[in-house]
């Protein structure tokens, strides 16, 4: 009998527990991960570079690809960075609509990720259910923006089109339906003994790790730090709506799921307030001239927003031309998806790698951009 040596394994890009076209090279000793190395490049489309070759409007069709599940956050961060540099006013109604859109996206994202835990754990009812309910949100996206996944709706100066009262009614109904369904997710997933066994005390992130790596969002809030950009540095009209930021003080996979679950309720709460309080008026200001000739003043800006995965930011420089001079994207899941993989995975069990990626909300293009 020979000795069992350390094995090198590919986790992804084809793996039910992998998120997107991304791969982790893992060395294991038995079941235990000894070394993990992120292996990007399969997705690399040079988003940031491509942005320098497209004009301010054209980029709207590109940037949202930086996160497929929550594309709208890109549209918002990009547009707000343009607006900051240009010193553009955004109509009040558009700001409320943006909050509504961003919270819808958060619900869609959390649903997918909540159900998605079924992937690495074998509970396939979860993703099936989640996709159906997420589709309800996508239906509303389709009604508002004309597209289900890539909306290209939030643009510099506002949003592309107004929402009608009829659509808002439909949205209210969808929120009621989802709210009614949530206890079933709780029963199916959160109360499930096997899920609990597979997620409690698994993929643990300590507060020190989170803070030193720069992890934000739910992964950080699960360590007891209540950092949420919407509260700490409110943008749009987040200071005009009431909502709570749920936290727990132990960041394991289970608690992160549990926070996502609770955040869905908060998002529903926010959207309901938006529908109630949103003023009427125009929804878009435009730069002078036609979109081929839009120029943004010379300057730079960093805009940060709270995405479903944490602080999401665009640092953008304009040289006064028709295209961005440079754009840097702070992908929200970058720290936990890159540093987290390399420093956090060693010592965990092989089957927990997928749990880490899943509950940390790693979104591959945010790293591989």
């Amino acid at each position, binding site marked *: 009998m020979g000795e069992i040596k350390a094995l090198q394994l590919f986790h992804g890009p084809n793996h039910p527990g992998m998120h997107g076209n991304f791969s982790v090279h893992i060395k294991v000793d038995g079941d235990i991960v000894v070394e993990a190395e992120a292996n990007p490049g399969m997705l690399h489309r040079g988003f940031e570079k491509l942005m320098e070759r*497209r004009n301010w*409007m*054209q*980029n*709207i*069709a*590109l940037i949202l690809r930086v996160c497929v599940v929550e594309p709208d956050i890109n549209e918002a961060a990009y547009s707000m960075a343009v607006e900051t540099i240009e010193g553009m006013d955004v109509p009040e109604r558009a700001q409320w609509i943006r909050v509504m859109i961003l919270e819808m996206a958060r619900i869609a994202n959390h649903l997918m990720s909540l159900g998605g835990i079924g992937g690495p754990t074998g509970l396939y*009812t979860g993703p099936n*259910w989640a996709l*159906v309910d997420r589709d309800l949100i996508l*239906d509303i996206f*389709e*009604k*508002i*923006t*004309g*597209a289900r996944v*890539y909306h*290209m709706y939030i643009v510099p100066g*506002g949003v*592309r*089109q*107004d929402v009608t009262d009829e659509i808002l009614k439909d949205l209210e109904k969808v929120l009621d339906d989802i709210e009614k369904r949530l206890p*079933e997710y*709780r*029963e*199916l*997933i*959160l*109360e*499930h*003994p096997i899920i*609990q066994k597979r997620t409690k005390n698994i993929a643990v992130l300590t507060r020190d790790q989170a803070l030193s790596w720069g992890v934000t969002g739910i992964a950080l809030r699960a360590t007891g730090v209540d950092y949420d950009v919407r509260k700490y540095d409110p943008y749009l009209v987040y200071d005009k709506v009431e909502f709570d930021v*749920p936290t727990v003080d132990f960041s394991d996979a289970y608690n992160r799921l*549990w926070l996502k679950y*609770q955040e869905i*309720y908060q998002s529903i709460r926010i959207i309901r307030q938006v529908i109630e309080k949103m003023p009427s008026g*125009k*929804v*878009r200001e*435009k730069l*002078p*001239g*036609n*979109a*081929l*000739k839009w*120029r943004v003043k010379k300057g730079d800006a960093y805009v940060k927003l709270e995405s479903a995965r944490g602080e999401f930011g665009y640092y953008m420089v304009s040289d006064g031309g028709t295209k961005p001079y440079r754009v840097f994207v702070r992908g929200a899941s970058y720290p936990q998806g890159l540093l987290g993989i390399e420093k956090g995975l060693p010592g965990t069990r092989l089957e927990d790698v997928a749990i880490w990626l899943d509950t940390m909300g790693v979104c591959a293009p945010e790293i591989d951009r």
Partner: protein
Amino acid sequence: MDKPKANLFSSIKSLKYLFKKPVTIEIPKVYREAADRYRGFHTNDWDKCIGCGTCSEICPTNAIRMEKVPGYEAGNGQTDERPVIDYGRCCWCGFCVDICTTGSLKMSKDYIFISPDANDFIYIPDEEGINKNYPEEGYRRNDETDLLELERVIMGHLSAEERGDSFIEYVRGYSKEEAIREASRCVECGICTYTCPAHMNIPEYIRTIWEDDLEKGVEYLYKTNPLPGVCGRVCTHKCESVCSLGHRGEPIAIRWLKRYIVDNTPDDEYEKVVLAEVSKPGKGKVAIIGAGPAGLSAAYYLRTLGYEVDVFEQMPLAGGVMRYGIPRYRLPDEALDRDISFIEKIGVRIHTNYKVDKEKFKELKEKYDAVFLSTGFFTGRKLPPHILPGSDHTDVIAAMDFLPKVRDFVRGMGEMPEVGEKVVIIGGGNVGFDVGRSVVRLQRMKYGKVDVTITALESEDILPADREELEEGREEGLKVVFSRGPKEIVIEDGKIKGLLTVKCLRVFDDEGKFNPQFDEEDKLFLEADQIFMAVGQAPDYNYIPDDIMEKLEIVRGKIKADEYGRTNFEWLFVGGDIKEGPDIIHGIANGHNAAKAIDEYLRKKYGIE
């Protein structure tokens, strides 16, 4: 919220879904209708689409290319290309729909298309749609999504009070900020270039404004037009009538933008650009008769090509219609002087007060290698007494006998021409308005009040004069009566009492020919003590020797020539009104073309490569 506890049985409840209707649907048994704003497959109305290519410019994925459509004839103001969409690239953003200049390109609610052949996904949208089912419209552009700027930057004018009693230029011209803003509306499609008689590089020079590089702009202007200061003010701007932006909004103010370049480039920089392209004089001498737009344009280009050029002008000042026809409030002398000064600076010799007659014509023919005629339509026409009784009265004046006097008066080179207290003008074209608005000013100076009426055969909707002439004329106090034909000039005791008019029922017949019909019973008498006629101008060919004249073909007053102004004599070329009919920019284009033809002729003659 309570933290969930483990419960082995909780998830068993989900078994109830086994007995519920599935949420998935089976296509094509069940079809799911897309939302109203759905961004699905495109459609394009080919009759509306002008092939401007703007959709392809904005497309962020390069999914659209413009392709010539076989067998498709492009009309004026469009190209024969139509957009082709590659659905392997399209990301359904809808920006092409948002920016489409005509609104022809739309998106449908159609979202399923199946074909085993990948090439089928490269599709030229038409009204039928990719599935040939005339799909329902989905996503629609509206004011908020529109990616064009439809409204023109307003041009500042002196108010009617400020301008009504003087001949001061009343269009202020754009400021830098305004010009850049107006220029930023242009989509650079070049549709206008085809229509401009001189095929000016319009999108290119508009872009130089947007980039604030006016020197480059001047360079573009002079490629096809050596009188940009004039054209920037009074061109008939046919380009604007086809401008892509005009389909859904207001056309780009092409003319005013041109003026902006000319007026805002400092003389020294201007001179540098204009002089840069001029060749040293070599072999070949050309005589040009008439220093109007065509003559000056031909002179400029011939000189840049290296020929010696002499221009002969019978009037004391060069410029022709620009100097003696168009009123000063539209075209001040300074603007014309500036344009002409650069033409002279490159070495063109202009001899004014030089009337060419038959004898001199022969001399010129001997002394020069080629002769270019551009003597214009400078004789005022009047309706003869057998058509309009009373028209031979001395107080009935032809427009072209009056306008030069006004210009001379304004520039201090003549007396104020006679104007009556009550004036009627026959003719609703731009010249009629030039006379009318000039009389308004003179009356204000002389009598302190205004009484001028223009009578037009045409109804308001088909008035030949520019819309702005009508509007601004009215602001200044001009009255206009439409659909009226002159019947008789009523004279009592040798004095004009007024003009009797009858109702004009139609101007053109069914074939579109000028063939007015009147209702003789419907009469209107307009009191007047002076009457002007602006019913067209005529050429005067008395200076052309008979043996030459015999061999020239005259068609409706114009000398027959080819596109390049070549006549039956290889050394004789014509351009301007006498070839094309009255229009400055046509004249300039003629001059440029003739210069090319003369160049060709002289190269052959001297064996220059």
